């Protein structure tokens, strides 16, 4: 299979019979126990995608619960301040879950209901996934377990409190680096032992193929809205459009881009921004922009931070949500086909971007999208005024208030 993107087919469906994109990324490298539950989920999902009542229900919740569409706004002050390209933000965080995670959580809970499962479980890094699943599960009457690294529990306390308020059980994960990677492992272990009654939700476009697909299917709502909004604002899709998105696992970036992948890259450029870690440290969470080797983690083959033996490497980022050693097979595929470009921003650059954006504009991006803003801020002055830089502001900063206060000395919501 060649490394070529086919037009007119969603990227999530461009895998082969082994669940691999370009014959190279993704797959189902899972313990035998999970083969059957995964196969059941594949069958159910492919049926539901064609089921009008399912789609109607999904759209009902997207509109009436998430509040679709989330706003697309021009950042006039930031544009004036930087001089150069126009800056726009799709404020995806303007929803009750304050992050893009809400889409996949709704879709997963709808699937769990149809599968007759009463329990859902998930992993969380920054706590956005945990908070959203807790919130949506409560709405749908499902019991919810959230796996979260102890280190993340400490640095994202605000979200932990919210998860508990929604009635979810938060399971602290003390193994390994005590961050997202360990939370995902522990969640998968829990599913191995309880797959008969529990529906597992993976927080991003990572994991076995079906989870990549469901996550991407759900977040695609973002670019469907964006396409309409851009046409409303500009009369058509702008001639020079750049879509910037932070990339951890990569679910918000895929959702932000999916409708635009078929456009010529000279017209619509896709730029993913990974977490470069602290500028004084060699550690990072940016496998794509650092040319990490292919590896197998959490059931999928993808570029992965690891040592020569194949032990998963340590990562570092101020943003828990991007602090993951691997990345979606979809983004590996987009990188190798040349359709998207990937770069990284450091902790310091993200903090400075947060500072500037929240000072000049009425939005307050969390540390994750602040990475994308950092790249946008450095690009904008070099670009012409007819270039449209659009950033996915996929999370709200409130969860980061303690970190921001500590680093910058103040926090404004």
């Amino acid at each position, binding site marked *: 299979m060649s490394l070529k993107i086919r037009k007119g087919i969603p990227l999530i469906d461009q895998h082969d019979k082994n669940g691999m994109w370009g014959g190279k990324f993704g797959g*189902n*490298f899972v313990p*035998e*126990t999970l*083969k*059957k539950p995964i196969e059941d989920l594949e069958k159910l999902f492919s049926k539901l995608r064609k089921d009008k009542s399912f789609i109607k229900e999904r759209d009902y919740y997207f509109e009436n619960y998430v509040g679709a569409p989330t706003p697309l706004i021009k950042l006039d002050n930031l544009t004036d301040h930087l001089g150069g390209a126009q800056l726009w933000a799709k404020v995806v965080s303007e929803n009750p879950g304050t992050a893009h995670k809400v889409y996949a959580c709704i879709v997963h809970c709808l699937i769990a209901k149809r599968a007759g499962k009463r329990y859902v479980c998930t992993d969380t890094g920054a706590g956005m996934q945990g908070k959203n699943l807790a919130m949506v599960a409560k709405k749908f009457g499902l019991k919810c377990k959230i796996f979260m690294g102890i280190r993340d529990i400490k640095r994202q306390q605000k979200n932990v409190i919210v998860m508990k308020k929604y009635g979810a059980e938060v399971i602290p994960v003390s193994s390994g680096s005590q961050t997202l990677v360990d939370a995902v*492992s522990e969640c998968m*272990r829990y599913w191995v*032992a309880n797959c008969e009654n529990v529906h597992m939700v993976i927080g991003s476009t990572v994991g076995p193929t079906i989870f990549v697909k469901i996550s991407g299917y759900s977040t695609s709502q973002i670019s469907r809205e964006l396409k309409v909004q851009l046409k409303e604002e500009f009369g058509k899709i702008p001639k020079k459009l750049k879509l910037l998105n932070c990339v951890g696992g990569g679910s918000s970036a895929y959702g932000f881009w999916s409708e635009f992948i078929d456009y010529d890259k000279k017209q619509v450029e896709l730029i993913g921004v990974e977490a470069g870690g602290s500028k004084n440290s060699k550690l990072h969470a940016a496998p794509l922009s650092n040319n990490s080797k292919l590896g*197998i983690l959490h059931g999928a083959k993808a570029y992965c931070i690891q040592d020569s033996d194949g032990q998963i490497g340590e990562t570092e980022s101020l943003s828990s949500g991007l602090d993951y050693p691997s990345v979606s097979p979809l983004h590996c595929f987009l990188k190798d086909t040349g359709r998207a470009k990937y770069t990284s921003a450091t902790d310091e650059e993200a903090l400075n971007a947060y500072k500037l954006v929240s000072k000049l504009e009425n939005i307050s991006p969390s540390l994750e999208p602040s990475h994308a803003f950092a790249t946008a801020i450095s690009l904008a002055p070099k670009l012409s005024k007819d270039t449209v830089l659009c950033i996915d502001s996929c999370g709200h900063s409130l969860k980061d208030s303690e970190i921001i206060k500590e680093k910058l000395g103040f926090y404004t919501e």
Partner: protein
Amino acid sequence: MKSEIQLTFEECKRKNRPALLTYTVASDPNKKKSLQIITSIAKYADIIELGFPHSTPVGDGGQIQTSSNRAIKNGFKMRDAFQIVNKFKKIYKNKPVILMGYYNMIYQYGENNFLKNCKKVGVSGVICVDLPWPENQKFAKKCKKKSISFIQLLAPTTTKDRIKKIIKDSHDMVYYISMLSTTGGKLKLSPKRILDNYKKIKRINPKKNLVIGFGITDKTIKSLKTADGLVVGSMLCKTISNSLRMGQNPVTKLDKVVYYLRNKIL
């Protein structure tokens, strides 16, 4: 020519008892001690499973995770696993050793290179936890070419149709996961239920050596002794952790535990 694994099962059958398979992690608690451990317990164990530890073991419970982390922290490298087997096989020439681990380690080492080294040091079989059927077909063929058994797993969730296909593609031994759990979980099913499931699988191909693993301890092993083989892993890893905590020698502790397990199934 019959493999060491096959011969071992045949011998156990003649003695009318199941084969005892032990699982410990290479380089746990360190390289030297882990060699001493398997050399010592091989007096009572029929087949030695040696894990190559991975930092992200999604199929393993707390005990094996702790052992794996300890080994990695003590500097485990893939070549150490081969060196341990090499030294072990110089003492126990005919005792089968099975290497067990996660696919990323084999993938990074290179499948061919991995198998070349397995052959060189005398590894009899390989278990790869996260390389299920049909994804494993290519690698399984490579194993077969080198006369190394690729050992597949069956789970309580595996459908009958799938079991047939897996058994058809299997080599000397198949591993039945007793229950829905990671390794080392408490036995959720009664031994009778586990054996009922076991017999259903056996009926598909009675000649295939089928072992049961997951949740087997000194308390449960006796009730499962009609199986072809029984794997004890987490209990041994736990014994290592406990003896280190108490300042005892894990080698002598494990020797006693495996002796005790062996007596339970005679």
